[in-house]
């Protein structure tokens, strides 16, 4: 217990240091929310592995290092082409860049958005667009029971605010890139916060990328809220390719309206420890959500995906598929909960989690959970953990393909359908390159056994 108190202090102190700034100016309306959140965080403390939802993921590395809040961004040599290398953009792209938590206007590009569509710094929007923000900000990402959501809500710095008005269609994806640039000697903490609101009948695609420049040691605690209004079509990508010294803990809360369609893609390649909590509320009848997840980790990386799909209303459907490849001594966790509320008749839910282990020391814990409280529903779930198919390897070798190539073809075959689901060509191509690099490494790990 003493440990927990100690661990949380660096964040409580950070809040105390910022409190004066939080109370100043046009954003002061948010201060009560921040205060409630920090109070809640103080009560919760950092989670220990005694908590069921943190059983397999220890946040001890957070206590071992002291993190400091980065200074506000000043242009200092980062260029748009450097950003492009870190995060593949589609075409010219609409782009919002955040460096160590704060907005980098000189690297961003939002001038050719369709009429009425907003993509801007959330910090600015909190000051200047309160009426549009207040009904949504911190209303979807519940922080009562989640220490890191509370921490982010208290300390949120900046991030993207995307507001798509009724009926508007944004043809090109809006890219949100969060870059950390710290040196291992001076680790930073960042609290990105994004808000996406797609009004009734609108359509938008968002690509949220978390990455680092060089060997940046950092702790990122991000929260994203997504609202898909009635009949809206929202596609959201979250790509996490941070340096392998980073700690990444993120929450995303998505609200799906009547007959709306939400697609979420979560791709985790980086960080030493990555935890994602994704929760989707199917809040009105006829909503539809698709959750695609891909994690590829090696070395001593740890990746933990917790998802909750809450079928609150009737005739909603959900499709979830998460796939993971783990090499070295990597550890993976998948915890997927599907809740069907008493009102949610005619629910159609399917969940799949497949894991491929490339070494004897890699480990994955998978825990699919169905909570069904209605009787006229279709719900299925399946989870697999396997190694490379030896019969398939022999078959390919008998077709003149050498062992290493056969392994990498099998591994690529395993993730191929996940890449196929990525509908942004440049993103798909960029990810393929990153995966190739990572899987060559995986192939060598496989060889060791």
């Amino acid at each position, binding site marked *: 217990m003493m440990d927990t108190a100690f661990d949380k202090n660096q964040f409580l102190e950070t809040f105390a240091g910022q409190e004066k700034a939080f109370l100043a100016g046009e954003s002061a309306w948010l201060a009560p929310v921040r205060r409630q959140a920090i109070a809640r965080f103080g009560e919760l403390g950092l989670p220990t592995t005694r908590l069921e939802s943190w059983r397999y993921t220890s946040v001890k590395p957070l206590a071992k290092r002291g993190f400091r809040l980065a200074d506000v961004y000043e242009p200092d040599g980062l260029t748009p082409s450097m950003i492009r290398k870190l995060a593949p953009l589609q075409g010219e792209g609409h782009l919002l860049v955040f460096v160590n938590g704060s907005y980098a206007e000189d690297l961003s590009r939002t001038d050719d958005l369709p009429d009425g569509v907003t993509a801007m710094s959330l910090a600015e929007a909190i000051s200047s667009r309160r009426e549009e923000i207040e009904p949504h900000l911190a209303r979807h990402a519940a922080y009562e029971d989640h220490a890191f959501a509370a921490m982010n809500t208290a300390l949120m710095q900046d991030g993207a605010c995307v507001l798509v008005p009724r009926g508007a269609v944004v043809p090109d994806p809006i890219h949100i890139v969060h870059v950390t640039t710290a040196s291992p000697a001076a680790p930073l903490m960042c609290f990105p916060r994004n808000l996406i609101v797609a009004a009734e009948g609108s359509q938008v695609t968002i690509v949220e990328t978390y990455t680092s420049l060089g060997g940046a040691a950092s702790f990122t605690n991000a929260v994203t809220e997504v609202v898909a209004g009635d009949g809206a079509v929202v596609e959201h990508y979250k790509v996490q390719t941070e340096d392998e010294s980073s700690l990444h803990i993120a929450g995303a809360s998505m609200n799906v309206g009547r007959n709306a369609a939400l697609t979420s893609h979560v791709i985790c390649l980086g960080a030493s420890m990555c935890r994602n909590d994704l929760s989707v509320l199917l809040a009105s009848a006829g909503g539809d959500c698709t959750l695609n997840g891909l994690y590829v980790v090696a070395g001593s990386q740890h990746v933990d995906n917790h998802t909750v799909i809450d079928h609150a209303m009737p005739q909603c459907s959900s499709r979830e598929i998460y796939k993971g490849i783990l090499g070295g001594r990597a550890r993976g966790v998948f915890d997927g909960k599907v809740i069907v509320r008493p009102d949610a008749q005619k629910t159609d839910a399917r969940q799949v989690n497949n894991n491929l282990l490339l070494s004897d020391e890699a480990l994955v814990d998978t825990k699919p959970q169905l909570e069904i409280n209605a009787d006229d529903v279709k719900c299925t779930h399946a989870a697999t953990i396997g190694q490379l198919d030896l019969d398939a390897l022999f078959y*390919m070798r*008998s077709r003149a393909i050498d062992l290493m190539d056969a392994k990498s073809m099998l591994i690529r*075959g*395993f993730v191929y*359908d996940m890449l196929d689901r990525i509908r942004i060509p440049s993103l798909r191509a960029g990810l393929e390159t990153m995966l190739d690099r990572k899987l060559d490494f995986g192939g060598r790990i496989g060889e060791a056994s």
Partner: protein
Amino acid sequence: MLQINQLTARVNGKEILRGIDLEVHAGGVHAIMGPNGSGKSTLAHVLAGRETFEVTGGEVRFEGKDLLSMSPEERAWNGVFLAFQYPVEIPGVSTTYMLKAGLNAIRKRQGLEELDALDFLSLIREKSKIVEIDKALLDRSVNDGFSGGEKKRNEIFQMAVLDPKLAILDETDSGLDIDALRVVAAGVEALRNEKRAMLLITHYQRLLNYIVPDRVHVLFGGRIVKSGGRELAHELEKKGYGWIEDEVKAGASVQS
């Protein structure tokens, strides 16, 4: 081309092959017949290099080289091909993609240029006619969701593309209806030439109605206990394998 001398092998500690002797020349088509459990498939897999089978003795020379010291892919590079009794499904890897990688690996070892996408496509088009395989099937994951007949056609198609010197066909006829059998057999027959040797491993002689072998060997208890011309296959069809067993038990020397 292929010389097998006193080959013994076991799987899970159990002796399956107990001294195989066999010689096959270029252009020769040999049928290996035998009841279930006689070691037919084991022989096929040992020749292809499957590690789960442990070779405990004897030697195999392929074009003078020590076959048993080679990895499965090295055997393929040298011209050995196994058509599987149970072709493996490989999700996410298409047949064309796999074959292009395999063929180019062979060509590289032969000092030939790699085929580019266009040349490879025209090769695929030409070879797919041999077994009347649907081109669309080849762009799908290897054998994934294929019918039994489609899988066997795919095996022969792959053989046509990789153009091996020695083709081992492990129960290619099993599970095929008569129409599929005709197509597959015609494909094999079309690939028969004076440079290529074939080992046809089969339980029944019906495949041999379409592909007439030069020699027929009967495998029993891990040994070749009888060899003869194609008429031996007919005899087996008529009389079953029981009489072979009787002969072996009677201790008769049946090598001819």
